[in-house]
């Protein structure tokens, strides 16, 4: 029996128009990601890895093709439905931590949860639990400016998991960290994804990080190849 993939990317293309110039970053990309698996997309800087992730995560619209996540074609969603999709079904982790500077570590983690219908008490409890899982049980009330780079990225990981999304999308999650912190965050990210049975697509140019994924792809010249 053929099990259907959680993420099905079909004939995806993205062209950027700058004045008279046209740049095709993605061309006829196809990708299947099974539920509970981890996929790494590697490639040189500027090859379109982040663009692919943004299209799957509903942060950008493709020029052509479809992205199915479960039964939903993300490319056809209206703006409000797209916001709901980003809130409930996807957890983003960016290269830069992208924490809100006016909110504490705990508040940053629970903000996506406030969009869902969870009670405040339960939400805070879950936020505390996730921060404890990433080793920040004593830094919950700290402001982002008081956290180290590695700590901020761990807060970002906890934030990505708060709504128990179907899919974690990680864009160079260790790209801005030193080797030691990068290894710590990498270990923690893969162990949490496994523990919570999440599906993850990670784009990276770090060969070591890519090797830890169940499947690896190489994006080059706008074309995605199995590696």
């Amino acid at each position, binding site marked *: 029996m053929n099990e259907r993939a959680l993420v099905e990317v079909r004939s995806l293309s993205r062209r950027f128009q700058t004045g008279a110039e046209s740049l095709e970053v993605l061309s006829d990309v196809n990708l299947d990601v099974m539920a509970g698996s981890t996929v790494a997309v590697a490639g040189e800087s500027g090859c379109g890895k*982040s663009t692919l992730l*943004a299209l799957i*995560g509903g*942060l*950008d619209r493709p020029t052509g093709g479809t992205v199915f996540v479960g039964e939903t074609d993300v490319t056809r969603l209206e*703006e*409000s439905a797209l*916001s*709901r*999709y*980003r*809130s*409930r079904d*996807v957890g*983003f982790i*960016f290269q*830069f931590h*992208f*924490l*809100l*500077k*006016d*909110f504490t570590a705990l508040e940053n983690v629970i*903000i*996506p949860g*406030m*969009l*869902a*219908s*969870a009670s*405040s008490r339960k939400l805070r409890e879950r936020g505390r639990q996730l921060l404890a899982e990433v080793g920040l049980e004593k830094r919950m009330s700290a*402001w982002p400016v008081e956290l180290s780079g590695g700590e901020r990225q761990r807060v970002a990981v906890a*934030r990505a998991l708060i709504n128990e999304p179907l899919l974690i999308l990680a864009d160079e999650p260790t790209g801005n960290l030193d080797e030691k912190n990068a290894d710590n965050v990498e270990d923690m990210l893969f162990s949490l994804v496994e523990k919570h049975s999440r599906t993850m697509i990670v784009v990276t140019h770090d060969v070591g990080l890519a090797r830890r994924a169940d499947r690896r792809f190489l994006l080059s010249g706008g074309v995605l190849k199995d590696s």
Partner: protein
Amino acid sequence: MSARLAFFLSSRMLRGRDGTSRYLRGSVLGIALSLVPLIVVIEVSTGMIEGITARLLEVGTYHLQCSLPSSTSTEEMQRRAQSIASVPGVVAAVPERQGTGLLVTRRAAAGVSIRCVPSDVFAVDAGFRSHITLRSGTADLSRADSILVSAALAASLHVTAGDAISLLTTFGENLGGAPRLTPLIVSGVYETGYQELDKTLVYGSLALARRSLSPRGSRALIGVKVKDPFGDLSRIAEAVSAAAGRDPRVATWREIEYPRLASFRTTKALLLFIMALVVIVASVNVSSSVLMIVFERRNDIGILKSVGVGERFLSLSFLLTGFATGVLGTAFGLAAGLLISVNINEVIAGLEWIVNEVLRGASLIRSVFLPSAPALGSFTIFNSAYYLTSIPIRIDAGDVLAAGAGTVLLCALASWVPAARASRTRPLSILRKV
């Protein structure tokens, strides 16, 4: 839950740790400062108009005036006044003869309007009694040679209570008539507080009217006071007209004072419009502040959108920020405006004192270098010669609330454009630029 998130985001923008809230603090101050003159104008103009209207009604025009043929005798006027007094809703009916003359003393002379009223007018007409303040002497008009002179007139004629004075009028059946000089005694000096009334009005008895005012050169009327002068007076005017007998012409105070009231209303509306423009400018400042926050927080907007915060809630967050700015500014502005309003006489007196002390000092210094130069004149912000001797303040809760609600609404509306701009921000375009 999402609305709570909007409140949460908005509150953090107001308290902003990175200094973006400084824009909002400036806007709060701007709104507060713009509201102060609006509130002061509302309260002062309302108090002034009501103060002047009350004096005009009680001392000037009466609530209704029943004009009679000028040839009507005093006895006939009294008889008709008694008849009118029995009309339901009428609280007083005062027969009065009005004329003009010249008050003459050894040192000065002044043209005056003479109002001859019953000697018991203070007992009959409570409104009249409450708006006339005796500065000296008594209000006794029982003698035919008694006269009540306003404080302003008494000052210009250099007389006080008990002094002798002469009234020059024309008396006769023919046009112009013969001059008649009537010796009088100033029984009292009064003040209504409204300088326009005080400048020319003197009161005498109906007996004085018989002696000094010719029927052809004077006006006979019955002044009517009613229970509710601010209600619909048309029905009671009809009843008064019917009770007054032959040839009456009844006019309400609104008809008599229409030009003056229209002028007051227009002036107040213009002043409020100008002050409202200041508030509108301040609310545009709120729009600019929120726009600056949207610009400075574009990364946060991108992050929030990437975690699923929808356009509606982002808009709501910025609208709430503008709204809260308006509420804070309005609260401070209303408090400061009301504080200044209730102390406006002291504030004006204080400002006049400061400026006059500076002028006095400047005069002293100038006299050292230019001994022949005249002293610098005194400075007056509020010339009571044209209005009331002091500014009456009436706090109208409805007006104050309307001004406050309007300001808050303006601030919320002013935040609409930046809020819409924030909601339209594309997350990827922001996150890529970081």
